[in-house]
């Protein structure tokens, strides 16, 4: 009897009941009809217990850090930096759009925030250079989906929590797939650039920009400290000198030598690049420190993802208020309010999902569905193909977060049982459903791109097709080559 909650839930969803209420109404009604009223109380308790979680706190924190960074004016810096790197290529601004999305993804875990922030800046700029508005909007929407794939990622935090996986492992597993989507999109633009004679852009838009003394020295120090650490890590990995079992002085001295080497190297490069290029790069150092801080902290085992998110907020506050001085105290309530509003919806949804998950287990739905799926084929490769199609279709109608919450507990155990690594399956689901954010008819980033560009959704949906084709290709690559997602977590010891 209880298994009927799934079709009832689907009906509720299709007729337009908000997902949160559907997740509770469908099992609630079935429990009531089967005389298990007492278990309805269990549903309520699970909503509460589902929200009462320390790892979930990373969601409001990452949202807040992203909001602070965005309000603090980092978008312009990232776009200018991307333009300095790729603007001179044919189809320059389209490349810039994609690269900016990849960089932005390291600061924010939201595709919608990415579309909104980058679109409002780049779509008009691209139009001015002769690109059609629909193409500009399509590139923006297609590249925005990288946001929740490259860490930090709200969707992966939710998946990890609902499915009991490690957030850090999922974050690390998302890096290469995210870069792969970006590279794929860049290749499409490259091909289109030749075919449609897309224009080149200036590498430097604002020449002779000043950098404040404070920002100059902060960037100066950060760059050398990061590069120095990289040299130190490579040296330590290669020679074993400076490991923790040796005296405390040796790592310190080795790191010092690394910093010095970095300084000498950078000073050597100084005169080889144009001063404006140097300025633009310098202005990008402070924002780009955020992903280094988050991933570095998690990788080194210094922070949990939640703590890393709180540290990212602190860093964003320091940057916006004291280094760049682009925010004032009066901006703060609005930023906090936006982060709190979005978080509340996500947290309540996760709570409802945890209650839903209990009924999923009680109803034996995964077992029944597993039998059905295995009756289609016993070959995991064919089943993964079919599941990708199912996820893609679901993603066309439902946003990634709710889709993951609903389908994760049902599909995850089936594929893990068949030998697919849980982290690998998490990445397949996350990337597939995230791409769904840019697919018609119900693609959240398409809607945002449409509102930013003032262009019809249908028109953007047509222009986005070549980009979607590449994203689908990447989804299948990720599915059939587990090493793409699993290598970094394995190398870093987050996955066995």
């Amino acid at each position, binding site marked *: 009897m209880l298994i009927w909650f799934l079709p009832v839930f689907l009906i509720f969803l299709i007729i337009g009941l908000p997902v949160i209420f559907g997740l509770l109404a469908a099992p609630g009604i079935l429990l009531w009809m089967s005389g298990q009223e007492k278990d309805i109380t269990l549903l309520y308790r699970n909503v509460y217990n589902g929200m009462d979680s320390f790892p979930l706190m990373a969601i409001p924190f990452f949202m807040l850090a992203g909001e602070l960074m965005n309000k603090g004016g980092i978008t312009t810096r990232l776009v200018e930096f991307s333009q300095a790197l790729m603007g001179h290529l044919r189809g320059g601004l389209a490349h810039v759009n994609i690269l900016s999305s990849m960089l932005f993804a390291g600061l924010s875990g939201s595709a919608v925030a990415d579309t909104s922030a980058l679109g409002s800046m780049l779509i008009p700029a691209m139009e001015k250079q002769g690109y059609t508005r629909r193409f500009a909007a399509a590139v923006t929407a297609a590249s925005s989906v990288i946001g929740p794939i490259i860490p930090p990622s709200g969707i992966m935090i939710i998946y990890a929590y609902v499915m009991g996986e490690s957030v850090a492992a999922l974050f690390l597993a998302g890096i290469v797939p995210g870069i792969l989507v970006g590279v794929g999109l860049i290749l499409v633009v490259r091909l289109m650039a030749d075919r449609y004679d897309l224009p080149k852009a200036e590498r430097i838009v604002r020449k002779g920009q000043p950098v404040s003394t404070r920002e100059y020295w902060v960037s100066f120090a950060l760059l050398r400290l990061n590069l120095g650490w990289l040299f130190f890590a490579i040296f330590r990995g290669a020679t074993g000198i400076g490991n923790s079992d040796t005296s405390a002085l040796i790592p310190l001295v080795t790191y010092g030598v690394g910093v010095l080497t970095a300084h000498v190297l950078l000073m050597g490069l100084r005169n080889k690049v144009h001063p404006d290029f140097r300025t633009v790069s310098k202005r990008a150092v402070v924002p780009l420190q955020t992903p280094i801080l988050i991933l570095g902290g998690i990788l080194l085992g210094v922070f949990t993802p939640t703590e890393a998110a709180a540290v990212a907020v602190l860093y964003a506050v320091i940057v916006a208020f004291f280094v760049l001085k682009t925010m004032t105290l009066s901006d703060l309530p*609005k930023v906090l309010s936006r982060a709190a509003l979005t978080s509340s919806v996500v947290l309540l949804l996760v709570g409802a999902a945890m209650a839903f998950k209990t009924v999923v287990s009680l109803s034996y739905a995964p077992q029944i569905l597993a039998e059905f799926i295995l009756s289609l084929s016993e070959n995991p490769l064919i089943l993964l193909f079919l599941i990708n199609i199912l996820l893609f279709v679901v993603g066309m109608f439902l946003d990634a*977060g709710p889709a993951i919450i609903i389908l994760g507990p049902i599909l995850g155990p089936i594929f893990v049982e068949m030998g697919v690594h849980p982290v690998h399956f998490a990445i397949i689901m996350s990337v597939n459903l995230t791409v769904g954010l840019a697919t018609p008819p119900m693609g959240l980033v398409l809607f945002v791109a449409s509102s930013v560009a003032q262009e019809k959704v249908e028109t953007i949906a047509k222009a986005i097709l070549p980009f979607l084709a590449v994203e689908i290709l990447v989804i299948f690559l990720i599915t059939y080559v587990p090493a793409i997602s699993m290598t970094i977590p394995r190398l870093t010891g987050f996955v066995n």
Partner: protein
Amino acid sequence: MGVLHGLLWPFQKWNDLVLPVGRWISIAAIALMVLAILVQVFFRYVLNAALPWPDEAARFMMLWLTGLMAPIAFRQGGFVAIDMVVQALPLKIGQIMSLGLLFISAGVLATAVEIGWSEVTGFGGRFNTASLYVPLAIDFSEWLRVPRSWMMASLFVGVVLLLIVNIELILRSIISLLGHGGDLKPLTPEDEVMAE
């Protein structure tokens, strides 16, 4: 129509006045959450002496933030739903369907309010939190261990506020269905929800 507007008025007024208070509390809560975790990071990693209270205090604030902000999001239409079918239907039928959906959500919320109250006042609420204390005297000489019910009340208050918003939305929906939607004050979103 006057009767419907009369019925709507107290709910609208309540939501106009109370929800912004919740918003300000949530603004403070999210800021304090960050602060609590940063204090913990400092004590754990710098002083090597983790404190017992920051994690629980931050969760306390996160739960209240959710309870107080979710009604605002619901009122602004920020709850994720597939509205394709409603939009594809002829206007009147779509409006009737939306009203039906609001009645379903009201049913869910009313049940949640009933269970929520028994949970807060019941057995689980009688325990205390593990590490949270509030001072009872100005000179901090007397402390009260925070009962778990204070934490559990967050979801109860949340569903009560959501139900009040839901009733307002039902009344607005009926007024629109009767062809007087133009008289209604628009519920303009102040913030966009950017969860994805």
